[in-house]
């Protein structure tokens, strides 16, 4: 196994890049298990994975703050423009512009504020822009869901997406897990098998045990 890692590093991969890459199958499996075994409805698979990576860049506190900002900006745009005839992408584009203004506004407010938001690593001004951009992508998923489902259902999915993203972020922060993956690449074929098995899984999801408890009680 070491040989594979060494070969990759010799060929230009950095250890950090490799570690981030190795977490991708873990996060994908996490979303898969959450969806079909637990029953958590996330905004697809891309959104929770992207958010997990984004939170790694921004830190969880700033990450959640920016996420809240993005959702507020998106919802406001959607609400303000709901009566105006407009194409879908134009609407999202306006939401992105608003998000940008909002983030700049929050950073400036933080700068001039006597009490500044900081974490161990950095303050809000030094948050990597890539992290913010990744979180801003949530606007698209939010609107798409809101277009086809009720607000309650959309918010429920958002909460579930954030829950998975935070679990993913926690996993990525475990250095022991990262080192373990580095040294035990045999885990990945197992993940493949696990995902394949979940793909065939027909049993009840954990949430359905709660959802149908009244039916369960009524069956004699």
């Amino acid at each position, binding site marked *: 196994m070491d040989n594979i890692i060494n070969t990759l590093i010799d060929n230009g991969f950095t250890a950090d890049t490799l570690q981030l890459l190795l977490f991708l199958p873990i996060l994908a499996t996490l979303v898969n298990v959450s969806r079909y075994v637990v029953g958590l409805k996330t905004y697809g698979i891309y959104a929770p994975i992207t958010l997990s990576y984004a939170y790694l860049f921004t830190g969880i506190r700033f990450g959640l703050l920016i996420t809240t900002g993005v959702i507020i900006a998106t919802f406001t745009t959607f609400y303000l423009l709901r009566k105006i005839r407009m194409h879908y992408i134009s609407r999202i584009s306006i939401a992105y512009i608003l998000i940008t203004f909002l983030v700049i506004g929050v950073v400036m407010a933080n700068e001039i504020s006597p009490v500044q938001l900081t974490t161990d690593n950095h303050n809000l001004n030094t948050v990597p822009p890539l992290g913010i951009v990744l979180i801003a992508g949530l606007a698209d998923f939010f609107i798409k869901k809101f*277009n086809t489902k*009720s607000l309650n259902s959309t918010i*429920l999915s958002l909460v579930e997406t954030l829950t998975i993203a935070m679990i993913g972020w926690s996993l990525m922060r475990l250095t022991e897990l990262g080192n373990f993956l580095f040294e035990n690449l045999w885990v990945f074929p197992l993940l493949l098998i696990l995902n394949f098995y979940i793909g065939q899984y027909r049993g009840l999801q954990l949430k359905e045990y709660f959802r*149908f408890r009244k*039916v369960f009680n009524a*069956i004699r």
Partner: protein
Amino acid sequence: MIKFLRDFRKYNEILGMNRRNQEYFRGHNTHTGKKIADNKIKTKKVLSEIGIQTPELFKVIRSVEQLNHIDWSRLPRSFVIKPNRGSTGRGILILYGKRKNEFAWVKSSGQIMRIPDLELHIEKILQGRFSMGSSSDIAIIEERVINDNRFKEYSYKGVPDIRVIVYNQIPVMAMMRIPTINSGGTANLHTGAIGAGIDIESGVTTTGIRLKGYSIVSSYDYDIVEHTDTGLPIAGIKIPYWDKILQTSIKCAQASGLGFLGVDLAIDRNNGPVVFEVNARPGVSIQLANLSGLRSRLERVEGLKIKNVNHGVRISKSLFGGEIVEEIESITGKELVKVIEPITVRKPGTTKKKNKESVKAMMDTGVKTSRIDKGLASRLGFTKSLKYFYNLLSEVNPSTSKEVSEFIKSYEEIIQHETGIKRLARVTEDGELTVRPVVEMEVKISGQTKLIEMVVSSTSVMNHPIRIGQKELKDYLIDGSRTF
């Protein structure tokens, strides 16, 4: 622990989303069938070809260009605008009336919709905002179903709809969705409409459910409710045209080629049952409204072959009828038994097959203590005891009230000691006062086993080998309409 595990297996009767998608939606629905179900215009075409009524189609709008050329004056006062490939009721705009001499229509909320409002809504539909896959869609304008007078008092503004799940061309479960104030007149469970389970046999509603809220633990939480927003009880609503509804559902399955589907119908005041949608991915909440598992029902009709539509209805009714009985039992806490009920009876303490018999028992509220035929009691192991008793009785032959009392006083203890007879009773048989032995029997009735005291009676006075009397019947309700 074993009981817990055994009980837990009851979850196997419930259909979850994973199995619905993997086994039933993907496993039994053809690509062509799904294409028909996902396209309302195609559904209308296919169903009307076999004579099934669907709401009349007024206009199809495929582009913004066409939208600009609609002659709104040619539309009726009331109509519905919906996406062709919409799902879960999103994007459906129901217009109940039109203001005089104005191009202004009224929504269920009372909101006025003018032409620009309608155009905006149609544009959203064309952009695919309410459609599966979110790609562009077609908007359709169709006839509004007028609520049947019988349902008017139950629903708030909208029209209740009926969902029938059909599998293998056999209706397996049904539910009525009743619009409420919360649902804003729509018949969508997720927006707060009431879902009422329907007894397949009689077409009568049973339990009602209503969305309580959302939670991360179970997504949608439903409460069991007993009354509609208009204050009427949910259980006991007789759905008109029930047989026709079941027949129509089967025909929809045949015409669409779908093996597993939900057929959505409404009852129009003038036209009767009208199909407005065929759904290839019916939701699983219907199980909550019926308090019954769908998976076990689907497995029961797996592989059955129906000869024709009426045969399918008959199979469905005989397999899945009876929820009403369960409902009454759950309300009263008492089991429902037929006038003539099959039971098994055995002499207590015996295990041999010859000491047990299955017979038809009559539920007889006219006698206090239950009765057993002399011949049956003998066969079950009381031959010697009864011989001893009747020998003694024929020797003494008591006939007056005093003699009967003295016989019981003198011999009851000896008889109890010498035989398996429990006590003696004074009874009037064929108009004459006499003494009869009372034995205890182990009886299994409606799934429950209990010890019952029975007077051994002469064969000549018994139409049925066992009559269950008042003492035992206090635990049961007798359904006079059902006989064995």
